[in-house]
């Protein structure tokens, strides 16, 4: 599964620096000229100079835009080469794939350079970036984004996989390591009591925030407009937005129009029970194949195909399933099918092999009861696995795996007509045009509308027009200009719109294994160089809420640590962090040098 999917949204905000500090209107949070250029000193917007100079009373030296104690400024002769800081590069996708990310990178690198550093933006296509950052170590800073998924409504996945030091081969690609964090994040996993688990989670976030291994920019918003004259029962799920599984199973047609026409601007990648990649797949996936469990409005797992699920003891989970339920071809859904559906992910490497890893044995108790036994009490299992793994027809897939599959991985096999037991049946898939599903009438929780047409429409303008003229009922993702959407929705009373903060995030992470990023103080200084208001409100035109440095999105109200005190966007504060960490500046050219005693990782 990849999160940095090079989202083929060709959107671009042409937002280039404004020459000089001339009167900026209120909306524009003006930001300073480039490093070498005509810097207008303290007059910058956010950079208040109220910050006291951490110098312990000795007289200070005025650098460009900040003051430092005299002893922190040395002539070239007293500095040795080991202390020199090479040019720091920030990797980002090319503008054609991610125009706003590229724009932000250009803006941020200029800000960081003001501390006396050489910075550059290195554009790489997604494959190049992923092999450089993922598999390699030869990088300084990189732009990164993770997309909100139902499984991530439980903070465990991000906090562990991107925080725990043992995952440095996987998601923790920026080599972040903190023993206290490791201990606490694993403790919360096995914690039975919800309140203690939340407290542990907040402490982890505080550690992460203080040591600042990366800088979080924003939690993107998901804005969904729909035709409220024709449809009711739309659920705005926190962290996911209005287009989620609950909405599509509970919404009801009010008028005579019984078919839901919904537009996406992304291609449908695949309709395979074991692979859940793009956004559009997720919804079709959940409509065609049932799951044992289902997240409710507060993102806690509720029984779905399972009648209920309860921990018989620390490591065994008994799951009775609904009786008399059939697949779309009429075959009954049995415990055999459930066991088979989970065993596949243990035998082959698929999208869901991770969550089932702690399971050591699945036993069929009787025709409609299954028992999972674990190596250790794995609290997130209901959400991470039971809420995600598709229940597939054993009678069809045994035949496919034995003799139909040319490639050794079921994830790569595409059924002509995907067969599941979910609330909707597959009708047709005209790639890059439309996917049509129709209601499966004898489902245990039948939906109120007859069919669902997912249209793939790349042009934002066409989407809007068709929403207004009634051809479409809902837009699953709208990446156009926010004000245009707002005007249109206000002008048309049959349309309503919901904008929700998601659990995904955009961040810039530092290679913690590479000088000077191995020094906490340097990373904290970096964090002081981000003018998040301008980035989120102007470059991303308000399509997200500003993020403090934590993996847990503000959308997850009960998990998010509200007391995190954001890094102030201030050149002086950054300089103070550097002084405290022992960094020095060269007298003549003002370039920053590492502390003499701390130029290597680990000493």
């Amino acid at each position, binding site marked *: *599964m*990849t*999160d*940095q*999917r*090079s989202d*083929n949204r*060709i959107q671009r905000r042409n937002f280039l620096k404004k020459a000089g500090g001339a009167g900026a209107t209120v909306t524009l949070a003006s930001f300073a000229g480039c490093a070498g250029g005509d810097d207008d000193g303290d007059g910058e917007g956010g950079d208040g100079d109220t910050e006291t100079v951490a110098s312990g009373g000795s007289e200070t030296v005025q650098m460009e835009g900040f003051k430092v104690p005299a002893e922190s400024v040395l002539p070239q002769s007293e500095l040795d080469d080991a202390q020199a800081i090479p040019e720091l590069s920030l990797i980002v996708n090319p503008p*054609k*794939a991610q125009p706003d990310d590229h724009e932000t990178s250009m803006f941020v690198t200029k800000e960081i350079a003001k501390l006396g550093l050489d910075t550059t933006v290195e554009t*790489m*296509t*997604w*494959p*190049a*970036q*992923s*092999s*450089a950052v*993922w*598999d390699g170590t030869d990088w300084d800073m990189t732009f990164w984004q993770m997309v909100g998924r139902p499984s991530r409504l439980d903070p465990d996945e991000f906090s562990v996989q991107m925080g725990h030091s043992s995952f440095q*081969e*996987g*998601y923790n*690609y920026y080599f972040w390591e903190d023993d206290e964090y490791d201990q606490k994040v694993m403790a919360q996993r096995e914690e039975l009591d919800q309140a203690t688990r939340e407290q542990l989670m907040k402490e982890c976030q505080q550690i992460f925030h203080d040591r600042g291994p990366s800088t979080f920019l924003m939690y993107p918003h998901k804005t969904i407009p729909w035709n409220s004259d024709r449809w009711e029962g739309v659920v705005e799920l926190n962290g996911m937005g209005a287009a989620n599984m609950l909405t599509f199973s509970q919404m009801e047609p009010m008028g005579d129009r019984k*078919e839901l*026409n919904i537009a996406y601007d992304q*291609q449908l*990648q*695949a309709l395979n029970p074991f*692979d859940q990649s793009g956004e559009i797949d997720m919804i079709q996936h959940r409509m065609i194949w049932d799951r044992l469990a289902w997240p409710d409005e507060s993102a806690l797992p509720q029984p779905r195909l399972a009648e209920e699920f309860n921990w018989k003891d620390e490591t065994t989970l008994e799951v009775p399933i609904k009786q008399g339920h059939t697949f779309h071809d009429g075959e009954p859904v049995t415990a055999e099918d459930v066991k088979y559906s989970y065993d596949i992910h243990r035998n082959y*490497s698929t999208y869901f*092999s*991770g969550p089932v890893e702690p399971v050591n044995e699945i036993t069929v108790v009787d025709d409609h009861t299954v028992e999972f036994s674990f190596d250790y009490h794995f609290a997130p299992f209901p959400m991470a696995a039971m809420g995600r793994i598709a229940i597939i027809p054993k009678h069809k897939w045994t035949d496919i795996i034995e003799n139909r599959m040319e*490639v*050794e*991985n079921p*994830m*790569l096999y*595409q059924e002509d007509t995907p067969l599941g037991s979910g609330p909707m049946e597959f009708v*047709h898939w*005209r*790639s*890059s*045009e*439309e996917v*049509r599903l129709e209601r499966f009438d004898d489902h245990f929780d039948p939906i109120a509308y007859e*069919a669902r*047409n997912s*249209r793939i*429409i*790349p*042009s934002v*303008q*066409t989407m809007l*027009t*068709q929403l207004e*003229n009634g*051809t*479409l009922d809902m837009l699953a993702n709208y990446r156009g200009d926010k004000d245009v959407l707002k005007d249109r929705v206000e002008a048309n009373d049959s349309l309503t719109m919901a904008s929700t903060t998601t659990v995904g995030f955009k961040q810039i992470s530092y290679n913690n294994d590479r000088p000077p990023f191995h020094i906490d103080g340097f990373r904290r200084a970096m964090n002081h160089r981000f003018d998040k208001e301008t980035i989120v409100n102007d470059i991303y035109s308000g399509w997200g809420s500003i993020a403090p440095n934590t993996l847990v999105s503000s959308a997850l109200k009960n998990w998010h640590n509200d007391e995190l005190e954001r890094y102030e966007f201030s050149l002086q504060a950054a300089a103070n962090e550097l002084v405290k960490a022992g960094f020095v500046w060269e007298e003549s050219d003002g370039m920053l040098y590492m502390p003499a005693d701390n130029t290597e990782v680990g000493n």
Partner: protein
Amino acid sequence: MGLKEFVTRRIIQIVVLYFAIATMLFFLFRAAPGDPLAAYIGTGFTQEQAAQIRATFGLDQPVHVQYWKYMTNLVTFNFGLSYITGDPVWGIIQDRIWNTLVLMGTSVILAYLIGVPIGAYLAWNRGTKRERFGVVFALISRSAPVFWTGLLGIWLFSFKLGWLPAGSMSQPGVTYTSKLAQFTSPDFLRHLILPALVQAFYFYSLPALLMRNSMLEVMNEDFVDFAELKGISDFSVMLKHAARNALLPIVTAFAVAAGFAVGGSVVLETVFAWPGLGREMVRAVISNDYPVAQATFLILAGLVLIANFLADLAYGYLDPRITYD
């Protein structure tokens, strides 16, 4: 050399060119930086899982083995697996060819149906104001970028007036029994009008101006005057003798027009969200899905080669003086 030898020779030539282009593409895409499978493998897999998936795509073998496998697969229309979805590429793009052919075919034929008579009319009114205006207007129509006229067309006919749909090939939720049923359904034709007209408007100037020039040349020929002497009406002289002879160079130009139209599908299909080869190629290139990009490019090239071949054949048929030497 008879027709048979000419046809076989040309078919061999097309096959050789096709594989030459395929080779160029193979090495061109190999030159791209980064691990092409990153988009697919992503972060969910451990190293050896990733290696195993690379093997399924055949990317672990040495280049020459890959090249040989790639070329032999081409013969059976097996273009490998998409790096994004892992599905066989041929499955993805197979019916796209029809969508592109229908759109490109209609627009080029429309361009000719409009262009050739206009060209003849311009030649027949040589020297008048109308002729000068006609020529300048033809040049103007060819100097506006297709996507610009397309977008304006959508804005006017779809957003403002609401007469025509704003792109894509069909209304939501419609199911067709066969491609043919789809292409003849009124709903499809309504979706076809705007894109075809926009492209035809861009292309009509090619046959129009060519026809004008060649008509002027033909009208100076003695056999045209002689036909008039035979007492035949001006109109049928223009049609039977002048236009018939003037058509010859226009036929070869059909191949050039078809070539550019097929190439232009990339832009036109993106503007009109037309699920054809062109749009698929743009998507594939942006998302670094090289096998799909390669396959769509190759099929487009194939269409161009075939168009050239058909034009030569038609030319031979139309002009008895050609002896296929």
